Each structure stands twice: as C-alpha cells, then as structure tokens.
C-alpha cells in the first residue's frame, strides 16, 4: 500500500523552528486555536504555489507574529512597532523585483502604525498587507484595540467598550477603500472551513498581484484569539461569524487587479556599498596633520573653553563647528555643545566649544570661559560674567556698543556684519569673526612654528566644514581673509600673508579646484 501526501506541511516553512532551544522545534509559538497559524499556512501555501519563495520578504510586526521569520523560509525583516509599511516601502523601492508582504495585527496596523499604513496605501506601494484583526491586543494580554467591538469586554474595558468614551472600532478596509491607489481590498474570516477557503482565495489573489508587481493589496483577516477572549474553538468561530462580521462585513471591497498591467521591474543590482558610503559620508579632504603632531604653544597647556552666542541664523553653531573642526584637524580633543530653541531663524542660540590636549571631562562651560564670541547684546549681557581673568571677548561692533568689562579682559570689536554685507553675504559674518580670531590667536598667543601652522589650520577648518560646497567655501574663505584684515587693524599692526584681493582669489581657486578635491581626498 502506497500513500501520497494530499495536504501537508508547506515547503515555505522551515523544517525545524529554532526559535528556542529544547525538544519542541516543530510547533509555532501561537496559542492553541490561534488564527495566526492558519493564515501562516495560507500564505506559505500561496507563496509555494506561485514560486516566489526566493523573492518574498515578509515583514514581521510587533505583536504575536513577531517571530514570523523563524517560520517562513524566505526573506524576513523584524520591524519596529507599526512601521512595517514604511520599511516595506524602502524594501520594495530599493529592490523592485522583491515581493514584500507586510504582516500586521490590529494593534500594530490600526493603532501605532496607522499613519504609516495609510500613507503607504495612499502611495500605492508595491506590497501586500495582511491585516490580522482579532479585536484585541493579543500578545500583551487582551487589552482593548482600535478594532475592539462595542460592548466587548477586554482587560482594559472590564465593562465593555463604551462608544461614548472609546469610540467605535476602526473599519480599516472601508477607510482604505476611500483611497485611489490600492488595487485589491478584501475582508475575510478564519472561522468555518468555507470562510477559510474564501480567505485562501483572497490570499492567492493578493499574492498574484504581488508577483505581478501590480501595486498595493490589503487583505483584512478576522481571526480568533481564543485564549484572550476566553472562548472554545466552537465559540470563537461563532463569535467571528456572528459578532465580528456584523460590524466588519466580509467581502471584496475592490478588485482592480484585472485593470492594472503587470509591471516587470528591471533587475535592480544591489547598490554598490562604496557608492552608498560616499553618499552618506561625503569625501573628506586630505588635510590636517600627522597623528603625532602637537602644537607646543603655552596657551594649549590647559583646556581652552570657548563660548559663542547670538541668535539663530547668525552662524553661531557653524562657527562653533569650524572652531571644533580646527581643533580636530590639529589633534586636539574637542567638544561642541549647542544650545538653541526650536526656531531655525531668530531666538537665542549658543554653543560651547572646548579644545584640550587632555580628555575633556564635561562639554559644559559654566563660568570658566577663556573666549567669548558675542553677536547680540542679550548674548553679551548673559555670558560676559562667565569670562575668566585674562580672557578674550570678541563682539560684533556693527550692531553692539563696546561692552563694559573688567580691565584684564581683552576686548576685540569686529565690524563683522558690515564686512559680510560688503562681501555680499551677511551669512558670512561668522567667518569674518573667525578671521579676526585667528589674528588674535596667532599674534598674541602662539609661539614659533604654531604661528605659521594656525593660519593654515583655520583655512582647513573652513574647507572641511563646508566640504562639497565649493562656492560656500570660496565665500567663507574670502570673509575669513577680510576678517583677518579687520582683526589686524584692531591690533594696529599688519599681518603677513596674502591679503591682497587678487592674490587671495588665486590662492582660493587653487585650493578649491575640483581636481584638488578629488586627488587629495581619502576614503573614510
């Protein structure tokens, strides 16, 4: 006597489920009588029949089905709560020949992830969503979900769902039916065998659409949660057929699969990781110094604490970044701590920069400031008390009066805003300040070779900060040189180097030549 398997375990399931060690490796983790298992079987069967196992990627939600990737022997991604359609969008767009199945429950799709789901449906992303509706949060112990029926008792609605305070259940299929793009919407139930067979057809149709890459399909599956709803298998089926379907009518809401043409995606090669890296992390210029380089001037024997303050849009934070970058390129330890309001423009902004040879214990500068750069009067009033004796205060004399500070503090007023305006871009005021600052530093505090080196260090910081934007580099370098002139004037003595405008331009062009960028660049 010979036997032939007529109905048996699908080859899309793994032979053994290695979710946890131990002898039980054939069973899924679902409770007895759970609808998830039935839907898993229907999906596995449909995937096997269509021969798309290699191309299928199943997105496991947060919820009971979170371990789906232990069961389906195809691609799987475990996704943050409710974010499966967002991840599915990424997957289906980056690998257009994949078949993306988003498997979500009612808490995942209907509550926390409803916006992701609805937006993906509205965009008509190329994926199929299986929405398992069991009217409660099953994994966490049967709390009320968006789909809990009116009057239904759950652990969080002990007197039944009150529509006056908790509203009515979300009718997801009906809501998606209001959108233009989805091509297939159907609600099925996993109760009687007849209903399961209808569900099987719906799953098949949805996967046909998926295989042909026709667009967005949604299959809502009314499923039983016998443990949390405290029902036997028989009562569960009756509850689905009598109570749930009354509120969630079964049937096909939309089927445009015949109208939509099959989409044959071109083979999409896996993106070159080097290319991705170069997009995410722009090329760095080969600037800076060797790893063992140390500036030996006395000023760097202790930590340098710099505070930059003004209002948002003045380039306060980017000035801080330029200074920190300068430190980084000269092998300092640096910290950069911004503080700003929610406004992109206006509102007070400040940042603290620390340059140190030693490890920096805290990025906060609290009353121990070596250098304050103030661009507004409020910033000046607020932070001038934090300056230590023998420190330096730089302020924008275009808009501010000379502040009244103790005699041992060096005050440098730079006409930054006016100079920047002459250059043609008021946004460059910060680079003007940086130029002036370099003069103060080089002429008053640095010794020996450091003088030469720091001229270069500041330029490199500007180039590095505005990497990939040659025009901005050019403008800011020009502002930097103008700032140097202004700073030098302030100190009543000239500075060496190329401050001649023509020579400046030639030097800048040399620096930012495209060739120069590419040839001198190194990978990360």
């Amino acid at each position, binding site marked *: 006597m010979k*036997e032939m398997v007529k109905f048996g375990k699908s080859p899309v399931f793994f032979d053994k489920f290695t979710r946890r060690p131990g002898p039980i490796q054939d069973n899924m983790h679902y409770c007895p009588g*759970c609808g998830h298992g039935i839907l898993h079987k229907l999906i596995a069967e449909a995937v096997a029949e269509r021969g798309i196992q290699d191309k299928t990627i199943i997105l496991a939600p947060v919820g009971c089905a979170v371990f789906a990737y232990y069961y389906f022997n195809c691609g799987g991604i475990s996704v943050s709560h409710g974010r499966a359609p967002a991840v599915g969008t990424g997957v289906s767009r980056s690998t257009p020949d994949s078949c993306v199945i988003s498997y979500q429950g009612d808490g995942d799709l209907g509550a926390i992830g409803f916006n992701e789901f609805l937006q993906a449906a509205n965009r008509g992303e190329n994926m199929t969503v299986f929405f398992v509706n069991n009217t409660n949060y099953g994994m966490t112990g049967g709390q009320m979900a968006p789909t809990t029926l009116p009057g239904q008792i759950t652990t969080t609605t002990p007197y039944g769902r009150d529509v006056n305070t908790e509203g009515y259940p979300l009718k997801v299929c009906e809501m998606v039916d209001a959108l233009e793009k989805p091509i297939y919407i159907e609600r099925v139930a996993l109760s009687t065998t007849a209903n399961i067979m209808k569900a099987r057809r719906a799953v098949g149709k949805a996967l046909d659409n998926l295989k042909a890459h026709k667009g967005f399909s949604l299959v809502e599956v009314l499923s039983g949660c016998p443990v949390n709803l405290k029902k036997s298998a028989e009562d569960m089926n009756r509850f689905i057929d009598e109570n749930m379907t009354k509120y969630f009518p079964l049937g096909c809401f939309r089927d445009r699969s015949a109208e939509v043409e099959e989409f044959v995606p071109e083979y999409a090669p896996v993106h070159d990781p080097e290319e991705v890296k170069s997009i995410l992390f722009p090329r760095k210029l080969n600037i800076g110094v060797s790893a063992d380089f140390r500036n030996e001037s006395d000023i760097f024997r202790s930590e340098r604490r710099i505070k930059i303050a003004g209002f948002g849009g003045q380039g306060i934070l980017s000035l801080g970044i330029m200074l920190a970058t300068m430190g980084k390129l000269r092998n300092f330890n640096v910290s950069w701590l911004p503080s700003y309001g929610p406004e992109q423009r206006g509102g007070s902004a400040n940042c603290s920069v620390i340059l140190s040879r030693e490890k920096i214990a805290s990025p906060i500068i609290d009353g121990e400031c070596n250098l304050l750069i103030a661009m507004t009067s409020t910033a000046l009033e607020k932070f001038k008390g934090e300056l230590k004796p023998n420190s330096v205060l730089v302020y924008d004399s275009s808009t501010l009066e000379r502040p009244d500070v103790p005699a041992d503090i060096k005050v440098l007023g730079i006409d930054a805003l006016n100079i920047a305006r002459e250059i043609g871009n008021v946004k460059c005021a910060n680079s003007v300040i940086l130029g002036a600052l370099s003069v103060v530093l080089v002429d008053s505090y640095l010794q020996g070779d450091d003088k030469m080196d720091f001229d270069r260090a500041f330029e490199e910081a500007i180039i590095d900060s505005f990497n990939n934007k040659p025009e901005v580099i050019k403008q800011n370098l020009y502002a930097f040189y103008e700032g140097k002139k202004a700073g030098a004037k302030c100190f009543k003595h000239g500075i060496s180097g190329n401050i001649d405008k023509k020579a400046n331009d030639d030097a800048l062009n040399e620096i930012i030549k495209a060739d120069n960028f590419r040839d001198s660049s190194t990978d990360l």
Partner: protein
Amino acid sequence: MDKKFRVHIEFDQCKACGRCIIACPRKILALGKKLNRQSYPAAYQAKDGCIGCGACFYQCPEPGAVTVYEIVEA
C-alpha cells in the same frame, strides 16, 4: 473506484484546540486521552471514512501537525 484517504495528526505537535474536530464533515476526529510532550491531549483519527477534503488541514493552526494522505492501491 473511490479514493481512500487517511488523516495523520502528529502526536507531539497537536495543541488540542479542537478546530479540526469541529470542522471535519465526517466527524471522524477526536481528542485522545494521552497527553503529548506539550501536555495536550492530541487529536487523532478515531474512525475510518476520511474523504480527503482537507478541512482539518486548513483549520489547523500548526504547520506540520495535520497531514492528509491519499491511499494509492498497490
């Protein structure tokens, strides 16, 4: 010639939810007395007369618990 079928329910994989027993049109399945490795009284084919409809297979939430065989005469 009528086809003959047989239901095999893997003893240790059954969780005794009872869905197959309700769904079977011939009512040939029943819960057993003996507990399996997971402490469930697994279902089994108690009577002959399987028609191979597959209702038990599709009702069963476990991927590999139910297998329906067609008996091919030698």
